[in-house]
């Protein structure tokens, strides 16, 4: 029953969005080529699916996303656990991190393209940067906030590094780390599109630029919708994974 009700919310919400779009289309003075109706965008979507361009774009984007985001999370958590356990070293690293953190990942884009040229790498680098700093800093914070009693208990029972790291520090800090990984997924997905718009010749971001160049606003809007849908799906999947691990580690179910 609860599921049915939440489906009702989703349906009503999307119907309202489409209705507003249709209304704007009806009253607007723009030509159909520049501002298409929901139905035209839907037709473009069907066309893209039929000729395989959509699948090819999604594949290219997902490949970059998984590599960029995956590497970023693994390296950031690993470094975060180490830096969090060594507060004196972190004191020296922190100023640099604070300097680099507020720089928008897109600002690095021209530099990355100069270095590596157009291709997979610029998008991967930008996704990497987008996820790296929030995950790293949250991991350090989560480790430094671990209750001292866990360390006393470990000390008392003779649990030393490296066992201490994966038996105590990682699980104790995990709720904070998981939250950051989850949030970073959203921003990484946002910056994927930016990265592909500048530094790639395939993928969903490039497809938007390509649609603009061909004045195919219907394809452009359909692609935007697909980006939104995939973002939603990714968020749902990581939320599910987060919940499962938290539950396996004795958290609230």
């Amino acid at each position, binding site marked *: 029953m609860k599921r049915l009700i939440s489906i009702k919310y989703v349906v009503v919400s999307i119907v309202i969005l489409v209705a507003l779009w249709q209304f704007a289309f009806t009253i607007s003075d723009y030509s159909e080529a520049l501002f298409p109706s929901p139905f035209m965008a839907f037709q473009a979507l069907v066309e893209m699916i039929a000729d395989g361009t959509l699948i090819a774009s999604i594949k290219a984007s997902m490949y970059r996303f998984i590599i960029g985001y995956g590497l970023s999370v693994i390296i950031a958590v690993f470094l975060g656990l180490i830096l969090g356990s060594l507060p004196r070293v972190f004191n020296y690293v922190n100023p640099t991190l604070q300097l680099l953190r507020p720089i928008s990942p897109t600002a690095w884009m021209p530099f990355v393209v100069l270095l590596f040229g157009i291709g997979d790498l610029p998008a991967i680098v930008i996704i990497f940067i987008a996820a790296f700093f929030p995950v790293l800093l949250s991991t350090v914070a989560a480790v430094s906030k671990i209750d001292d*009693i*866990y360390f*006393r*208990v470990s*000390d*008392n*029972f*003779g*649990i*030393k590094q490296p*066992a201490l790291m994966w*038996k*105590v520090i990682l*699980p*104790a800090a*995990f709720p904070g780390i998981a939250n950051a990984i989850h949030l970073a997924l959203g921003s990484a997905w946002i910056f994927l599109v930016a990265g592909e718009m500048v530094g790639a010749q395939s993928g969903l971001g490039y497809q938007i630029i390509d649609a603009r160049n061909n004045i195919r606003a219907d394809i452009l809007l359909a692609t935007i919708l697909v980006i939104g849908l995939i973002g939603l799906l990714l968020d749902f999947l990581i939320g599910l994974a987060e919940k499962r691990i938290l539950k396996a*580690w*004795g*958290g*609230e179910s």
Partner: protein
Amino acid sequence: MSYIHIENAGKTFEENGIEFTALSEVNLDIEKGEFICLLGPSGCGKSTLLNAIAGFDLVNHGSVQISGKEVTSPSTKNVTIFQNYGLLPWRTVVKNVELGLEAQGIDKKTRREKALEYLKLVKLEDFANSFPRQLSGGMKQRVAIARALAVEPDIIFMDEPFGALDAITRMKLQDDILDICKNEKKTIIFVTHDIDEAVYLADRIVVMTPNPGKVKGVIPVPLHHFRDRTSGDFLLVRDKIFDLLNMKQEDNIEYTI
């Protein structure tokens, strides 16, 4: 020399340039198998003394020795049980009890058997696969006791272990700990601010007073188990403690108008 030998032990902190004495000139000898209660109001240094013997926070004057060796760090042979349990919430009850055994390099099967055996001792074998958050405070502390006993320690330190529990659960656990400890013959050092608890449990009570934290007196408890919380002997020991803590009303105050 006695098993635990404390000589002129003291601890001072410096906070904002002001020196503060948490513990001053403690002399104490504890024999193997004794149940010692450190009793006193907050700020009397009882936890400081316990942490010094357990090796968590060392004294900076005098010496604390166990079996003739100066204490410099926590030892796996002496386990501390904390007021807030110190269970790892991401591990099941049985995995918590196995924690100390893992560091000893005992194989998985033996570990599990041993953990279950000690869970049975604290009557929690039915909760082996529960997580700590699913247990009540009293049950959590029993898991912590099982975890401590599983590594077969020489000394068990208990820092107000029942302080967070309600009065009835606390009395129940006091009985349990007496039962278990008499059978296992451990040396126990138990910190409390509850006079009745100290009289009920201890072989000797170390009464401490604050400003600065020091030992006011050591009272032997000549009672045998099981103790009756309402007997005359019980009240007599209690009375001595009140006396040491200057908490007795003077009877013969003369009033002149």
